[in-house]
């Protein structure tokens, strides 16, 4: 039951998202007729909706289109996230560090496309060393630690961590996994918001992100775990992962790392004293404000799935550099 060689779960999620985007205007209009929307809320909802209309296909189509478009798509996303981070922290003024992070990102993408896990791992320490060492050569010790630390942090967050998400594309079941992860990470935020409104009393982290509640966090964990475990059960059937203990662990990992990613970016924004990372997406702020929760999901799930045999990275190893 495949269409154009696309996995049925990937297809089902895509159809579900397309359907949701189609009926959303009807819901808005109904709410509006019932007089439940203030003009400001109405304008905000429509702006956000229009942004999703562009964002959703941009995210999903490359993942469906095959291994190369998927890796390129995530690399572009990572580059744009780095750009926002660099402009928000002031790191963008350090062209050398920016150049090294960019070269590191390109090499990581090459390692992923080549399916060369050894090189991917090697780059983590090599690029970090290069950032630390090359920053010496300007002979400007003032601000050295800050420059280097911001560069290393950016490379780890947007290069290495998002790179792990990208690396899943080297598995036959990569596309449905990646699309499920994206869906669940985004819904994780929505679940936290909704259950937080209903059950949330105690604040989760009042200094970092005052609107989050413990109730919301737990609610999201339950709902996201249920959804992600179900999806993974259908995707990774007949693999060693398809057992309740693994499926639940994966769901909890996704929900936790997703929420932590969100908190990490909130913490960074608080420290910088800014509300949004940029004004890239109307109604949402920057791309990073939208994709912050995806950052840590990649490494956690990749290594869990790889260790327990859920994915085997069955693309031929070293596609370009092999013999």
């Amino acid at each position, binding site marked *: 039951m495949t269409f154009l060689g696309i996995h049925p779960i990937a297809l089902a999620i895509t159809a579900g998202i397309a359907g949701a985007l189609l009926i959303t205007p009807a819901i808005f209009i109904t709410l509006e007729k019932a007089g439940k929307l203030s003009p400001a809320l109405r304008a905000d909802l429509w702006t956000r909706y229009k942004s999703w209309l562009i964002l959703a296909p941009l995210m999903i189509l490359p993942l469906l289109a095959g291994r190369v478009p998927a890796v390129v798509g995530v690399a572009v996303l990572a580059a744009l996230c780095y750009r926002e981070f660099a402009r928000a922290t*002031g790191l963008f003024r350090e062209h050398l560090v*920016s150049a090294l992070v960019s070269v590191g990102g390109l090499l990581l993408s090459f390692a992923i496309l080549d399916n060369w896990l050894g090189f991917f791992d090697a780059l983590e320490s090599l690029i970090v060393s290069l950032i630390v060492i090359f920053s010496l050569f300007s002979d400007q010790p003032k601000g050295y630690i800050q420059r280097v630390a911001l560069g290393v942090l950016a490379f780890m967050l947007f290069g290495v961590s998002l790179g792990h998400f990208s690396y899943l594309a080297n598995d036959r079941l990569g596309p449905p996994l990646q699309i499920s992860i994206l869906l669940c990470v985004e819904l994780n935020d929505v679940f936290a918001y909704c259950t937080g409104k209903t059950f949330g009393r105690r604040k989760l982290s009042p200094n970092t992100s005052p609107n989050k509640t413990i109730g919301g966090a737990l609610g999201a964990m339950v709902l996201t775990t249920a959804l992600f475990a179900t999806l993974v059960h259908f995707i990774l059937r007949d693999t060693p992962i398809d057992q309740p203990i693994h499926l639940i662990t994966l769901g909890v990992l996704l929900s936790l790392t997703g929420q932590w990613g969100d908190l990490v970016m909130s913490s960074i924004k608080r420290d910088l004293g800014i509300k949004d990372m940029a004004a890239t997406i109307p109604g949402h702020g920057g791309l990073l404000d939208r994709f912050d929760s995806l950052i840590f999901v990649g490494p956690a799930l990749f290594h869990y799935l790889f260790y327990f045999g859920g994915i085997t990275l069955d693309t031929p190893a070293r596609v370009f550099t092999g013999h």
Partner: protein
Amino acid sequence: MDEWRYQPAGDLHLKPTESLRSLHREAGLIAGITQTAWRALVRTYLRGYHRLRVEGIEHLPAKPPFVMIANHASHLDALVLASAMPWRLRRSVFPIAAGDVFFETPAVALFSAMMLNALPMWRKRCGSHAMQELRERLIEGPSIYILFPEGTRSRDGSMGRFKPGLGMIVAGSPVPVVPCHLEGAFAASPPGARIPRPLPMRLRIGPALTFAEAGNDRTGWQEITTRLEAAVTALRDGSR
């Protein structure tokens, strides 16, 4: 021990199209690369095709902020002045360009921002507020401005009267203003000419003037304008 100090980009919360036209725009890696490539191209062109000669380079201050001014006879002028700047100062240089020409459409604005690193001056509403913003960017940047006080290109090759707007940017500040005179640009690229002619050009850079004592008022601005106009005229007449 110093605390870490973060300084987000001045145009962080602007939409991409607004950011191109903003006086708070700051170049990152990509703009740095495109501007450097453009600079190399323009320098080669000016030195080869127009056999550009630069005299008095020693008069340029060692570091920003400062303002470079000259007579204005062609679209090549800002390119000549920018290309005369030493390599280490290249990232601080901002030609001040007419908003209604260089920032009107998004495509042209993209070119002006990514290649020229130009900042817009809107001729129809260049009131004291706009001048104040330019002044802040100049001093706090710190930046180097390339500016043509005539306000427009000469239609016949002769130098027009200087406008007092420049006074509002530097009056009462220690920022040096470097007067320059560019010779041959009008003949090489008169208004309306599509392709520049391969004629020689010569840029003379004069000693910098400062206006820390000049009042930031009408009298002060006029005094600054008169002195700078005289300095550029003197360079033109060759009596430095």
